[in-house]
């Protein structure tokens, strides 16, 4: 019997792939030199990178610091490298970094700003990382809005305590009246009681208690606030307050009540149609005109109000997008369960709508934080205002890259971390497939 055909009984071992498609060479071929056009692009990019780095790296590392003025810096540069070109003078950052961070805040009180920042992080932690943090920390978050201003502005502790008491009063009014007179009356009382307390009684009460038990820390005036701290302060307040107001405005805009809707649309479109700088002009020049004669309250507070309103209008549009993206079935499902409007919003609609709008919300946050620099135009000394003042100083006249690089780095760190956090949150809340 002859063998008719050859049948292989064992498999051949796999061959290694061609050397040009794996490893470093393969990666380079695929990603950098896949075609003529790509190779040209790669070479141009490499040239650009070389150009930038060959200028920037010596500038950063072959630099001078510790001198008292730019002229001295240039002398040192001339001695060391023979030219002043292409070398940074970090002395200005070295000398002024505390001022750039804290403004004119008294230097023996820097610990209060630092403590406020730590408290901010602690108060944010249970909100940002709700699963990893103990639930009790939320109490710190609730107390934070009263502690933070007291730490920064100082003065008697009884002021913030009285403000906090107003909120407690409102809550108590609601809980007492709700079983007796129904929810509507209770809500009205819960709003009216604290307002009456704040405007009529709290001032004199705080004064009286302060007379008995003077408990306070050194007060710091608003005009001493400045630097990066001011940006962070304005950013935190505008971001924190704009979210709830934005939600209310977005609901108002989606509402069936024609008048409420018209008011919300008018407000949102007006704010979004004008630049922030005009609103800051209103804060610095006009807000006192709109209030009863003799009212004169703090410029930083006025700026906070206008920035919050500004942020709220943008936030409302972002949240409206989230509400619109929600399928109608969710609304109908909530109705069919017999939930009333607020229950449906709280339990069904808002959790989903807010989740959809996270990227938009965070980019609004970042935008607001960056926009806090505009206060330098109305004369507050935030980082950019201070940079202008430093550049006008005869010792540092003519310096710009070093200062602006430092400021840009500060903003970049904060904004970039915010955008990364939003990506983390999106992944965490992603419950779809």
């Amino acid at each position: 019997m002859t063998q008719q055909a050859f049948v292989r009984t064992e498999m051949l071992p796999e061959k290694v792939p061609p050397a040009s498609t794996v490893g470093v060479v393969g990666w380079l071929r695929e990603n950098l030199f896949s075609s003529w056009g790509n190779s040209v692009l790669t070479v141009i990019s490499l040239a650009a990178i070389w150009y930038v780095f060959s200028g920037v790296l010596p500038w950063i590392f072959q630099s001078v610091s510790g001198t008292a003025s730019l002229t001295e810096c240039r002398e040192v540069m001339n001695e060391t490298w023979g030219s002043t070109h292409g070398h940074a003078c970090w002395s200005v950052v070295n000398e002024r970094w505390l001022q750039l961070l804290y403004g004119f805040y008294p230097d023996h009180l820097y610990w209060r700003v630092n403590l406020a920042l730590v408290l901010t992080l602690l108060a944010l932690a249970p909100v940002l990382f709700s699963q990893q943090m103990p639930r009790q920390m939320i109490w710190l978050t609730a107390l934070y809005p009263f502690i933070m201003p007291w730490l920064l502005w100082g003065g008697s502790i009884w002021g913030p305590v009285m403000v906090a008491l107003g909120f407690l009063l409102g809550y108590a009014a609601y809980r007492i009246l709700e079983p007796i007179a129904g929810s509507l009356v209770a809500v009205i009382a819960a709003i009216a009681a604290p307002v009456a307390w704040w405007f009529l009684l709290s001032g004199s009460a705080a004064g009286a208690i302060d007379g008995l038990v003077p408990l306070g820390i050194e007060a710091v005036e608003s005009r001493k606030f400045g630097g990066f701290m001011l940006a962070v302060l304005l950013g935190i307040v505008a971001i924190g307050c704009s979210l709830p107001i934005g939600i209310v405005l977005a609901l108002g805009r989606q509402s069936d009540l024609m008048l409420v809707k018209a008011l919300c649309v008018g407000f949102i479109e007006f704010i979004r149609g004008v630049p922030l700088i005009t609103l800051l002009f209103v804060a610095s020049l006009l807000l006192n005109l709109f209030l009863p004669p003799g009212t004169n309250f703090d410029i930083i507070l006025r700026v906070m109000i206008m920035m919050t309103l500004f942020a709220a209008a943008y936030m409302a549009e972002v949240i409206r997008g989230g509400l619109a993206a929600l399928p109608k079935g969710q609304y109908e499902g909530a109705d069919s369960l017999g939930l009333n409007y607020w229950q449906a919003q709280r339990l069904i609609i808002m959790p989903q709508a807010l989740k959809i709008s996270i990227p938009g919300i965070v980019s609004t946050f970042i935008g607001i934080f960056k926009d806090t620099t505009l206060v330098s135009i109305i004369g507050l000394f935030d980082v950019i205002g201070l940079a202008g003042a430093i550049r006008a100083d005869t010792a540092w006249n003519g310096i710009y890259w070093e200062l602006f690089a430092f400021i840009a780095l500060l903003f970049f760190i904060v904004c970039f971390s915010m955008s990364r956090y939003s990506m983390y949150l999106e992944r965490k809340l992603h419950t779809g497939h």
Partner: protein
Amino acid sequence: MTTLTDPPKESFRLGMLIYDTRYRSMTIQAVAMLGFMLLAAWLINNTLTNLNTLGKPIDLGFLGEPASYDINQRLLDYNSRDTHLRAAFIGILNTLLVAVLGCLAATVIGVLVGVLRLSKNWLVARIMTVYVETFRNVPVLLWIVLALAIVTEATPHPRTYKGVETGWFIITNRGAYLPEALFSRSLGDIHLFGASSLRFDVSLDLIVLLVVLAASIFGVRKVNARANRIQASTGDRPTTWHVNLAIVFVPLIVVLTALGFHLGYAELKGFNFKGGTHLRNSLIALWAALSLYTAAFIAEIVRGGILAISHGQTEAASALGLRPNKTMRLVILPQALRVIIPPMISNYLNLTKNSSLAIAVGYMDITGTLGGITMNQTGRELECVLMLMGCYLLISLSISAVMNWYNTRVALVER
């Protein structure tokens, strides 16, 4: 046997205003309206009282007074004896100028960067990511101030041009100079609005050129329509490009020669350049910073728009036998545009509103004139700020109206 009877008519009780959902919405609206009107009345009353105490009731008369300050970068004629209204008008034109220039530059850079971020080339994509993240995460005001510092401190002094004297494009620390268009046999200007504050000179040469250009474009479209007809009936498309080229350029060149068109270059006279089109440092800094900043956002929008088109579309197009460039032009881009346009509108609006930061670099836009020097000189804060807001509202609403009209044109029409 049962009979159906209407339920007895409930008589209206006051409590129903709160507890009956049929009436409750009206109650809420009435309360909201009342609250709003009370608030508005309170604010207006406060304002009027305060203004009376200050002794300056609302009065727009200051707009007619001489402004007595100079505006160095301007599109129309203006001198310091002109009124505040004229200054504000020049300011609005400056705002529009930087907004239009900025939107154009930002779109070009943004689309380029957005496409390059999707490049298969790893290095190019990374570089573009670095660009986008750097510009998006640093305040625009910082970029504007930095750009001004660069163009004033890192550019040469005019005296370094001794020996060169003139050129196409000259950068000095006092601004950039471009050639200007001059007509030796000019037809003159039309003076609109006489000698009022809104007077507006339009060059007749420019109008003639635009009319000729429009006629040429009309001609080109006619030729293309004819070519389409012939292609539809016979299958062969006649070559049209040389006819089109002639239609566009021959009349244009004839008219330009007839008007005596030539370029006027900037020349070094003494310590400074004279003549040519002078772009001030403030305009260049503002333009560059706004364009680069907004381009980073536009790049992300373009990238998102292209990624939003599912891969199936590309595959379907290649299944139909379309070549890659036709796939891009006929399938991907028209769909991506629908995703891209709405956020693009809001970025154009942002750029226009951010142009108000001109005040930080001394470019005299509407914020610098009406909201800056005019307000400081006359002390009319209320009137100036309200007019300023009105101007910006008008500009924003016009831009969004135009762009929304365009958006509805390209939007998908469903059923």
